């Protein structure tokens, strides 16, 4: 998520609150932090804190009594009304777990995972805080909520009953929000759990299951867990039995690009009920960065496999999207399938991209592409 550098004055407990630029009614103020841009500062009693830019820190500092001050050095303009911010005590970072203007909002449910995918951009680890309580509060703060919200991790299904509890909370507080659960599907082999998911979500939950190969030999190797392929497929079948809308997500890497068309055919033959298939580029963080040499493939090298897989899927009536790719690396015919899928805050372009007329339509790069990116990045000027 987006982060801003900051320091705090008078902060003695963590903050989780909505940002406001305007004066709020007294009894609602405990949900807010006030973003003070004006020279004059009215009565701020009741807010969790006040955020100011560095230049004004001294002026305000004296006026505020018993109210924590958050001083942000740079990027305050990026905070919008009703964005949610978080500060962990003693931290010098302002986290922004929810951005109103972003199409990519989600709840980060857990850092832990039961797989260890070779290209994971976020190394699994045990949670150091109570993520469920945090997310429950976040759900209350973002109400009435965005159109779409992803539930991600880690592996969210590991929360078990608590995931059900959070989905119920979403249904109650955010009745108009469509949820998308990102999962490796393994826990969903338990049909009783899928049954509970279905009851809790009442048709408002789509599920995106990660599948990386058409055999257990390759899939299990990629995700670092034996039996994972079988469990994921069982999970998909269980989801289909309960009428879930199902998406398959395929991350393309050196270890699986050769058989993309065969994987596409496998999905058609075995997971016929899938409604959408996303073919995704690598994000080179953490495990992916450690395993770079093992997983890296220049997208330019798999153009023919990507084209064939997409063609095969489209013929068979699937919706297909390409995520995390630059237009100059994929065949031009597939440009209409490319989506701007990278969260705004970590979406970058290279200097050379400034000369490209397709830049507004291009998915661009993860910031991590500075580690490595395709050797075929070229401005497009038709």
């Amino acid at each position, binding site marked *: 998520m987006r982060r801003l550098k900051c320091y705090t004055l008078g902060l003695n407990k963590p903050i989780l609150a909505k940002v406001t630029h305007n004066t709020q009614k007294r009894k609602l103020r405990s949900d807010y932090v006030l973003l003070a841009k004006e020279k004059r500062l009215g009565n701020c009693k009741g807010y969790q804190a006040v955020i100011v830019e560095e230049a004004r820190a001294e002026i305000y500092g004296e006026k505020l009594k018993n109210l924590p001050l958050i001083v942000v050095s740079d990027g305050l303009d990026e905070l919008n009304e009703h964005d949610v911010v978080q500060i962990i005590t003693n931290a010098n970072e302002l986290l922004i777990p929810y951005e109103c203007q972003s199409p990519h909002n989600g709840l980060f449910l857990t850092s832990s995972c039961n797989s260890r995918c070779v290209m994971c951009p976020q190394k699994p680890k045990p949670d150091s805080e109570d993520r469920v309580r945090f997310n429950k509060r976040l759900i209350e703060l973002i109400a009435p909520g965005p159109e779409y919200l992803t539930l991600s991790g880690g592996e969210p299904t590991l929360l078990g009953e608590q995931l059900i509890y959070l989905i119920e909370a979403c249904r109650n507080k955010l009745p108009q929000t469509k949820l998308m659960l990102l999962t490796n599907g393994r826990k969903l082999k338990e049909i009783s759990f899928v049954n509970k998911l279905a009851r809790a979500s009442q048709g408002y939950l789509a599920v995106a299951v990660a599948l990386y190969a*058409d*055999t*257990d*030999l*390759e899939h299990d190797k990629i995700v670092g867990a034996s039996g994972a*392929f*079988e469990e994921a*497929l*069982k999970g998909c*079948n269980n989801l289909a039995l309960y009428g879930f809308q199902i998406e398959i997500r395929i991350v393309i890497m050196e270890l699986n690009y*050769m*058989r993309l068309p*065969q*994987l596409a*055919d*496998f999905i*058609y*033959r*075995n997971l*016929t009920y899938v409604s959408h298939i996303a073919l995704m580029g690598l994000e080179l963080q953490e495990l992916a960065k450690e395993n770079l040499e093992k997983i890296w493939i220049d997208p330019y090298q798999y153009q023919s496999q990507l*084209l064939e897989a997409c*063609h095969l899927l*489209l*013929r*068979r*009536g699937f*919706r297909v999207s390409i995520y995390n790719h630059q237009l100059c690396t994929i065949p031009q*015919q*597939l*440009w*209409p*399938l490319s989506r701007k899928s990278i969260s705004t805050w970590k979406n970058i372009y290279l200097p050379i991209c400034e000369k490209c007329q397709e830049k507004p339509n291009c998915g661009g790069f993860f910031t991590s592409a500075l580690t490595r990116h395709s050797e075929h990045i070229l401005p497009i000027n038709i």
Partner: protein
Amino acid sequence: MKNQKKYKFLPFNFMRLNGSTLVTNMGGDFQILSNETFDKFINYNICPTDSIYLDLKAKQFIYNNSPNLPIQLLATQYRTKKSFLRNFTGLHMVVVTIRCNQKCKYCQVSSEDSDANEYDMTPETAKKCVDLIFNTPSPYIKIEFQGGEPLLNFGVVKYIIEYAEEQNHKYDKKLEFVICTNLSSTNEEQLEFCKIHNIYISTSLDGPAKIHNQNRIMENKCGSYKEVIKGLQKAQSVLGKDKISALMTTTRASLGKFPEIVDEYISLGFNSIFFRSLNPYGMARKYQEIISYTTEEFVSSYCQGLDYIIDLNLEGTLFIEEYARLLFKRILTPFATGFVDLQSPTGAGIGGAIYDYDGRVFVADEGRMLARKGDTQFLMGHVDDGYKTLFGGDVIRQTVASSCVECLPQCCDCAFQIWCGADPVRNYTTQGDLIGYRPTNEFCKKNMALIKYLLKKIHNAHDEVLDVIWSWITGTCINLNNLSETAENK
């Protein structure tokens, strides 16, 4: 001595093709292997590092550890392929009269002259038919009016449609009507009725005048082409082109002329054709020599016609050959296809049933021709007998039990098994028993040849040809060079 096994087999059938070997499994998936690779495969000599190893594993031909997952995947595929069984009888063909105003050379019905009213179904029998039909557990009912020429007894057609619609308020089935008519006696009133009740018309057109008129003849001995075209244009203008389809029957006169027939269909506004071979049974003997032909002759005409249609599609004309569409769908998709004449177990009785004008119910059309000659093999009973007696009776049971390609001699290890079906009625009329004898069975010979041809088409197809084939299957044409439009349509 066998090597130490690198993998184990899952159930599969194989067939030698020209220079290669086809393997198919219970889910209907397939792989064409070179003979050399096939030998390696069956001798357990394919290595996990070969890409063909992963192909065979992903398609569930082999497994190496536990068979649990392959069993689950194949079971789901098999269930999907056999899902047509879930609904029971959905197609109900009602013969409202066996009178006809035409005397077509290949007609099996030995129809009566158009003024012989004693061969009409009565409203009482019609009511019983409808009551019986609504007993089916199928959520989908298609009532198809056949004859003779059903419109010669339009009163009963009208009665059945109105009564069925009234009954359907109670049952809430997906109800559809088709009138199979030669269109040569259709009047405005009938067409207006069809329009109001959203009825489909299936007519017969064998091609351009010189072909059609050789086969399909009016009572006055003149060809019926002019009358049919007049009726067709009237029907198209009242009902819209999408409500009317046509059937063509191949006779000796049409052999080698399928492209001309296709052109005729296109010029008349049809977007599909079904190249249908003659069913020699019941046909007047004096015509048999003049109009019939060998299976080989039909197949070669069919292939020529299909190639012509595919070329038309490549040039931008959307036009479908229905039998190829059916078989392509069986070969290339995991789904079931409802087609009563090529199903395992057979669709006779459990997929479709036919109600004769006198209230007798048969598992298939040929059944009533046999019955006229005194052989009641396929007579399920009479509408008076009630649903359970008819549809739970011995005739339907015996017919179905003898029609599972999974257990019929030679079919049981045929690589086309999962795509094909049995026709016990045809076996009975041509070979004397329900099981039949495959090595000399013309039905088998025809389907084998057609499926082989379609497989070759798929195997050698360019991307553009595959686009055509898939557009037939899904009804949507994907143009890779213009995806933005396709994507927006979704």
